[in-house]
């Protein structure tokens, strides 16, 4: 993945942390991204092959996700379990 695209993912994760009210930092490193929480925990997020994301806490794998939606859900459950999670509801009413 290009550094440009990884930087954009880092911005998305940083923004998500703000939405959840979590004061962690997101940094780029040679393999992907590193997320550091105030409690000292470090999460490493690296691109998986062929697609998706691998999340590691220290040496332990927390999960592999096919894409950003799964990654975000996993990080919210890990870092902000108290943050309200909603679900998309599509109504029955026609727009037009």
């Amino acid at each position, binding site marked *: 993945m290009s550094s440009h695209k990884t930087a*954009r993912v880092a911005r*998305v994760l940083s*923004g998500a942390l703000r939405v959840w009210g979590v004061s962690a930092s997101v940094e780029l490193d040679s393999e992907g991204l590193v997320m550091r929480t105030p409690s000292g925990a470090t999460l490493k997020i690296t691109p998986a092959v062929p697609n998706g994301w691998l999340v590691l806490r220290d040496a332990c794998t927390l999960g592999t996700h096919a894409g950003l*939606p799964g990654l*975000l859900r996993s990080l919210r459950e890990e870092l902000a379990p108290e943050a*309200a999670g909603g679900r*998309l509801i599509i*109504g029955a*009413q026609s*727009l037009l």
Partner: protein
Amino acid sequence: MSALPVSVVTGFLGSGKTTLLSRLLRDPALARTAVIVNEFGEVGLDHLLVEASDEEVVLLEGGCLCCKVRGDLVRTAGHLLARRARGDAAFDRIVVETTGLADPAPILQALMTDREIAHALRLESVIATVDCAAGDATLDAHPASVKQAALADRIVLTKTDLADSSALAERLRRLNPSAPQLVALHGKVDARRLFDGSPYDRPLYNSESHAESGVTTFCLRRSAPLHAVTLSLFLQVLAEHCGAKLLRLKGLVDVVESPGRPALIHGVQHVFHPPAWLDAWPDDDRSTRIVVIAQGLEAGWLQDLIEVLDDEVTACSIS
């Protein structure tokens, strides 16, 4: 049978909702209107004041419309529709008047999603009354009033004879730039300008970002078409993580799989209408335009979110 238009009249306590409705119901343009009003407390004062609504007024008992009697709202609307179907009641439009303390979002969601009524109704307009004499102080002190104005399709300024409305009007324009503002003196306003189509007719599609009273309004733009899956994932992520922070979202989306036929999308918090596919673009601009009204969400974050999701969908399509 075509869907019946339903409008919601909201606005803080004393802002003139009932005065407005009372006048509107005398307008021949709204002669065939059924009104659902709500009382807050023991006496249904609002009900007593809506003079022209006759037997079509149904009073919801038992408290605030948004948090306690959504079921009643649905049942009441269902009863009205059933009476109309039997020929016992003749009306071509429903207007729901909320209490002054109501958050209109759950009311809109109930109208959009309930399986008993949603298919028979078409959300026409959300109208918010704002009192020019007390509006500034109310917006400062009551978050519910901010949300009412932010969610509105049209804002009606009331009591303009008591105070200069220009500063408040400007504040409301920052809060909700896409809502046309109308002035009602003692409830008098042109009904056709309040009920003249759907809320999807005229979303503001400029790039300017506004912030007021903790509410930001901005427009996401993208010149390249989006994959349909990207749009679906984007809405899912918003619903899952942003919840109540997303007040309203309206947009036209250029979808890869539907060239020349943009998708019209609309949502209130985590509840969305099914996307509608237009036969053609409404103007020469062929870019995706999504207007977001939110509390605590950043335009740049949502723009990056769309790009990352589409990158991932594109990569999956290729691999």
